[in-house]
Every structure is written in C-alpha cells, then in structure tokens.
C-alpha cells in the first residue's frame, strides 16, 4: 500500500504538491490511475464538504439530545458521578476506527448507521462536561433560586445551565472535533465524506489525498471557530467579567 514518496525533503517540491492539491480542489484533474477520467474539481469537493457537514451535524445533534438532558439531570441531582465520569473516561479510550469498522461489517453501511455511531463518540465529552459544569455551580445560587420559588426544572434551565455554559460548550466542541475527525473515515462505511479523497487514493491520486487533508483541516477549524463564537454569545456577560 505504501507508495514511494513523490516528494523529497526540499521546500520546492513540497510547495508544488500543495499547489497541485489546491488545483485539484477547484478544477477536475486527469487522473493517471483511472485512465483519462477526470477526478476532483470544485463540484465534487463541494459535494463532499456538504456530505461531511451533514453527517457531522446529524451526529452532533443526536449526541446533544442524548447527553445534554442526562448530564443536566445527573449534575442537578448530584448523582451518578461515577457513571458520568466513567462514561467520559471509557469514551476517550474507544478507538474511532474500530467503531466505524464494526458498524460497517456488523450492522451495515450508510448514513443511518454511521451517524448514530459517530454520535456515540460525541456523547461522552458532552455528558461529562455538562455533569461537571452543572455540578460545580455555586450551591448558593441554586438555593437562592429555590428560595425565590423556582421549580427544579426552572432551576436547571434558568440558573444551572446558563452558569455551566462555558464548560458545556467545551464538551460540545470536543464532541464536534471527534465527530468531524471520525467522519473522515466514514467512506469505510459507505458514506462519501471528504475522507473519500483520502481513502480512495487509488482513484484520486496524490493531489486528491492532499486536497482531502486540506479540506478536512479547514472544515474542522471553521466549525471549531463557529462554536467558539457561539460559546461567547451564549455565555452571560457576568460570567465573562469573572473570567477575564
């Protein structure tokens, strides 16, 4: 599988291969592997970026729906610390490749199996961070809210969750990172994300390989930047004053 390196350790060929990759993203290239068929190009790149985004958004949404209420409830009750933290630690140890591989060979290929599999990887960081974030909310604030006659649900929604936003969003961002990264190997399970350029290097060639890497990296950094922006929007001004 290991092909000979096409570039030696000199800056010029390195720049040339990056140039080739950028060209691949925008204009279809004649592949020397598929016998004259054109591969890559802007339309194909856009199609794969959108698919990658779609899988990521669906998986992140599922992870949020499962982990956020659970973490909020456990943190509020102060129960299940061992459960939440245990899930978090075990979640970190799960090899992403094995999850995608098992889903592909046991359950089947396609978006409907890959998205839940990716969601599983995102659940752990969101659950732990929500638990920790809510758990460390100043008990005085919760007592004050209770004294004002707020219901337990209101306390969770209006006091604990807003105060835990920075920690919760830390978990959401960690989940987004692992989901975007793992979506790169989703082509192994029949979902054509940007990883297609990377995994099917026999179709797209060296330029495609590098183009895929560039696009995945840019996508991850963009999503991460947007989530950081969202975090600062969601964090109340009072909390920001304290941290600065």
């Amino acid at each position, binding site marked *: 599988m*290991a092909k000979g390196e*096409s570039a030696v350790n000199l800056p010029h060929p390195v720049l040339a291969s990056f140039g080739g990759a950028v060209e691949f993203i925008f204009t279809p290239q004649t592949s020397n592997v598929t016998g004259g068929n054109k591969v890559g190009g802007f339309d194909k790149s856009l199609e794969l970026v959108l698919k990658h985004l779609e899988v990521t958004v669906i998986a992140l949404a599922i992870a949020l729906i499962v982990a956020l209420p659970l973490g909020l409830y456990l943190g509020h009750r102060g129960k299940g610390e061992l459960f939440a933290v245990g899930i978090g630690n075990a979640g*970190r140890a799960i090899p*992403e490749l094995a999850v995608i591989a098992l889903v592909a060979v046991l359950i089947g290929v396609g978006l409907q199996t890959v998205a839940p599999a990716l969601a599983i990887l995102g659940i752990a960081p969101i659950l732990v961070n929500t638990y920790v974030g809510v758990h460390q909310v100043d008990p005085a604030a919760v007592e004050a809210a209770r004294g004002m006659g707020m219901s337990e649900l209101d306390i969770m929604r209006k006091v604990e969750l807003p105060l835990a936003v920075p920690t919760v969003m830390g978990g959401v961002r960690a989940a987004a990172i692992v989901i975007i990264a793992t979506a790169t190997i989703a*082509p192994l399970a029949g979902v054509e994300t940007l990883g297609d350029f990377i995994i099917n290097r026999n179709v797209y060639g060296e330029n495609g390989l590098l183009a895929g890497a560039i696009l995945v990296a840019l996508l991850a950094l963009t999503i991460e930047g947007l989530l950081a922006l969202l975090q600062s929007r969601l964090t109340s001004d009072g909390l920001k004053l304290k941290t600065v």
Partner: protein
Amino acid sequence: MASPFLIAAGEVGGDFFHERSSGTLPCQAQSSHLFCWDWARENIDRYGTPTVQHLEIVLLSVAIGFIVAFALALIAHRTRWLQPPLLTATGILYTIPSIAFFFLLLPVTGFGRDTAIIVLSAYTLQIIYRNTVLGLANVPASVKDAARGMGFTSRQILWKVELPLALPEIIAGLRIAVVSTIAIATLVVFISAGGLGTQIYGSGNLTFPTSIVIAMAIVMTMAFLFDLVLLTAQRLATPWRRARAL
C-alpha cells in the same frame, strides 16, 4: 454510493481469515458473528507485533509531547503574556483531525512512523500544556510567600514547591493524553505506520468482526492499564493529598 473497495471488502484478504494449519475456516469468522472464539484462540499470536508497535508509537509520542508541552508551560508560567497565544496554537493543532494532519505532512515526512509520531505528539500538547499551566496557577500565593520567606530562590520554589503541588493536575493531563493517544494511534494504519489499526483495516480492506473486536479490546485494555498506572503513580507521589475522583 458504495466506494470501490466496499465491493472488495467481503473478499478474503490473503490468509487472514483462514486457520493457518488446515487452511479452512475454523468457524464463521467472516460472517456477521460478533465473535468467533475458535479463530481467536488459533490466531491470537498475530496481535503481538502490532501491539508492540502500537505501544512504541504511543510511548514515543506522549514522551515527546510531554517534554515539549512541559517546557512550553514553564515558559508561559514565567512569561504570562505568552499564555493565550500558546493556548490558541496548541488548540489549532488539537483541532486538525489526525488523518488530515497525517496527509498534510505527507509531502514533508512521507509515509511511516515519523509522521505518525509527529502528529500524535502534536495532539497531546494542548491537554498537557493546559493542565500544567492550570496546576501551577492554582498553587496558593501564601505557600509561595512562605517558601520565599524561608529563603528559597525562584528556581527552588518552582521545583520544590510549585511543581509538586501542581502534580495532580499535571498527571490528570497526562492521563487524558495517554488514553486518547492509545485510541487515536489505531489511525496510523492510514499512514502505513503499523499498530493495532492494521488488524482492523488491513491491506486496504476492513477485516471482520472477530479481528476488530480483538484489536479494540487490546486498545481499550491498554488504555485502562496506563490510566491505572498513572493514577497510582500520582497517589504515591502526592501522599499529602487524597486524589480526587476526577
């Protein structure tokens, strides 16, 4: 739409699926059965070399990552204004998905273990750096004042007071770094660097459930054992402090 190798995924990859003595399948290893004990018993020895490779890559990566992150944290501890830019820089390295990172380095370092180790060690920087800075910042000023009052120099305060007190946070960061690196190191198969990933995705094909489960079990056991060793080391090294559950 199915990708080309998916069609090939069901095909037999070399002698991988066969019992080596007779050349026949000991049980339905290739089918959708989750686990085939017969095959596992016959073939468990083929996981030795990948496990050792995996361990080597993880240990080298975390060691390099730790040295760099620790040095950065000490510099940032003394030069406060460096803290935000260093956090952003290590954060960017952490955000780039590892597979993308492998192939971004491909024109420079090529296929193989070097690229794998560079990427995996870059990955550990943020968590170790952040926890070390945090641990040093959490040392109470009164303790440092007391040490200064006893005539400690700045260097002595750092090595004899601040770092020992920051040890729980530093080791907490190291634990996260080691555990996640053990898991992520399965991906180095894409850059032809070996490791347990080869038993999940070998010669361009996914293997089959039994092999994937064995590789996954070895990875997770390895992660659990390292976590336990580091936790124990931390408790032994900080007898004055009861280790917290987190």
